[in-house]
């Protein structure tokens, strides 16, 4: 031993060729290094720099909103986005659907041993970019590593908090007969973009996921029509599921018109040959709004003026119905039920 204390040399994390190993979740140096070199650097903000196990912050007047969302999407990278930006948008949207201004996010990562660090870096940087663009910082987080075979690369859970301005009352149980139902744009883009990459389903499409943070659109909508009754983002289960949820919560029925529902031609085509219904396919950057009839045209105009609401449309009306059916007038002139999704949407055989 020379007795000379050398200055610490820490070999940088190899983000080009390295892989996640168990030490990255072990609580030791490797984990601290991954947090410093990847997460803190990417999400950089005053709360993370404090290096506490929690973030402390002040909030303004109004009701506080909290939402959490786990993301397990496969594939991790898809046209229009990846699991990283999706995990930021998903939670921001859940907070925003209460009419709230989203303020802070927390992120939990479950990494699988052997996951390429290059992919992890790409995902984290995409999250950071999405959070910066939305103006909602990731202020605290957690990382765990599971053994190879016990995860699917990476799972991300994000939790968001926000504040609802005083005077805004938006909730899924407030729809009333006579109210109008609006959507902010084309239905089914995200689901079709994902399906186009799934194993044994490869088909070519230019459809991209619509993943986007909707709080800006919501703010513009509330500014125009503070009397909005319900907002919800039709993610898994699509528009059909969201309308059924709202009908049940509010104890009413609904009638929508098929020809008013905006669906991209390619999404229709993909659903047609996969035997799926676009009304049940997931969206990640769209919302459903229900408002009093008198506000509908004004609200629609405000939505169309926003970059994320250009294809917005009034698609139907809330009715009195003790059975809480969501019915649809088909383009064909008949009427049918738009029912809850049964299990997973399975393709038909012929």
């Amino acid at each position, binding site marked *: 031993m020379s007795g000379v204390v050398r200055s610490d040399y820490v070999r940088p994390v190899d983000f080009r060729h390295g892989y996640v190993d168990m030490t990255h979740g072990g609580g030791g140096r490797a984990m601290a290094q991954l947090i410093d070199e990847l997460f803190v650097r990417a999400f950089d903000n005053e709360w993370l720099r404090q290096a506490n196990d929690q973030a402390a912050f002040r909030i303004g007047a109004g009701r506080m909103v909290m939402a959490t969302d786990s993301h397990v999407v496969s594939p991790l990278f898809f046209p229009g986005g990846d699991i990283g930006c999706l995990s930021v948008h998903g939670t921001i949207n859940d907070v925003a659907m209460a009419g709230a201004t989203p303020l802070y996010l927390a992120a939990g990562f479950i990494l699988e041993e052997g996951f390429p660090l290059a992919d992890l870096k790409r995902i984290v940087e995409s999250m950071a970019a999405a959070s910066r663009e939305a103006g909602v910082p990731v202020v605290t987080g957690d990382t765990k590593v599971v053994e190879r075979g016990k995860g699917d690369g990476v799972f991300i859970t994000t939790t968001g908090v926000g504040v609802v301005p005083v005077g805004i009352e938006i909730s899924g149980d407030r729809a009333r007969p006579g109210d109008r139902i609006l959507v902010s744009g084309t239905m089914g883009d995200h689901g079709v973009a994902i399906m186009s990459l799934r194993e044994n389903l490869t088909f070519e499409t230019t459809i991209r996921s619509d993943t986007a943070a909707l709080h800006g659109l919501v703010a513009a909508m509330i500014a125009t029509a503070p009397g909005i009754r319900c907002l919800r983002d039709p993610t898994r289960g699509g528009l059909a599921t969201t309308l059924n949820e709202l009908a049940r919560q509010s104890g009413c029925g609904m009638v929508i018109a098929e020809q008013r529902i905006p669906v991209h031609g390619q999404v229709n085509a993909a659903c047609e040959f996969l035997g799926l219904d676009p009304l049940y396919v997931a969206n990640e950057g769209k919302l459903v709004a229900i408002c009093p009839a008198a506000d509908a045209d004004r609200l629609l105009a405000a939505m169309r003026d926003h970059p994320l609401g250009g294809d917005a*449309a009034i698609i139907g009306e809330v009715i009195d119905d003790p059975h809480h059916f969501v019915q649809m007038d088909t383009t064909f002139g008949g009427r049918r039920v738009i029912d809850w999704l049964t299990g997973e949407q*399975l393709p038909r055989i012929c």
Partner: protein
Amino acid sequence: MKFIDEFRDGKLARDLASAIAREARPERSYNLMEFCGGHTHAISRYGLKDLLPANVNMVHGPGCPVCVLPIGRIDNAIALAARPGLILCTYADTMRVPASNGTTLLKAKAQGADIRMIYSCADAIRIAQENPGRDVVFFAIGFETTTPPTAVAITQAKALGLANFSVFCNHVLTPAAISNILESKEVRELGTVPLDGFIGPAHVSTVIGSQPYEYFAEEYQRPVVIAGFEPLDVMQAILMLVRQLNDGRAEVENEFTRAVTRDGNAKAKALVAEVFELRRTFEWRGLGEVPYSALKIKDQYSAFDAETKYGISYRSVPDNRACECGAILRGVKKPADCKVFGTVCTPDNPIGSCMVSSEGACAAHYTYGRFRDVAVVTASPVPAARAAS
């Protein structure tokens, strides 16, 4: 969407609806069976009932491939999937069909069986190539539409020498099922099921052609109109059937001329004849044993026949006693006539097979049409507003 929207045009539908209403004679009724699940699905999904006069009744037929698969064959498939190391490939609809003891392929998968949902039997071949150390079985079901692709898979497997690939063949034949319905005592003797005409299969007919139906038209004096699966096809076919019945004709007419010829697809038929032969008898859910109604793999391809390879023995299992699937598949009862419909039997918890596939009469009625069974406060049409861009 080109080639789709043309066949879903609302204005043309209204024109056809008024023609049907004008030509259907008020003093009689028109009871028309759509054989295929594809037609059942179109009728329900587009709400065609709302466009037809009250005396034109649609009777759902047995042409849903998943619905007619007997419980015993699903049990066989689940037993196959339970064999260590075996990969069972199946079309998606089959996953949820209830088998004995409340099991399904979906539940077997959750318990660890390696069951893969595929879109095409070519995927099963690929899986067999990628897993040379494991046995891969394709659970082949369906009418004449899905039979030629299975024949292709078997001949490919032979050419490739894919010893780990085999097919559990459950392919069934449409004409045999139509005969069975027309010969049933409800239709022939009791007259409890009035059947005045048939909407003939769409995709099946692209393979077998329109010629096989000529026998039914002639022998049983029932008109048949072969129709595509788009809603306008169905409306047009209904109008053609109404006209035939008004004229006292019983002919085979072809509405689906864009895809169906009299002789069908000669190449596909030859391939099927090369690989398959008739079974002496086969059990159908709802219809029971139907002679010469299904196909088995010929001896020269027996190396690819899962029944031979794994010594599968068939055991018939009766339907749940409360389930009316059998009567519904024969057109004797309607879904809402079944006591368990919409109560214990729902698409989430199907008791009978008709509640499983979206082509099944019960699932189609539950999913799209059950609001007609209850008094619902109907809304005025959706108020006019600026149309979506």
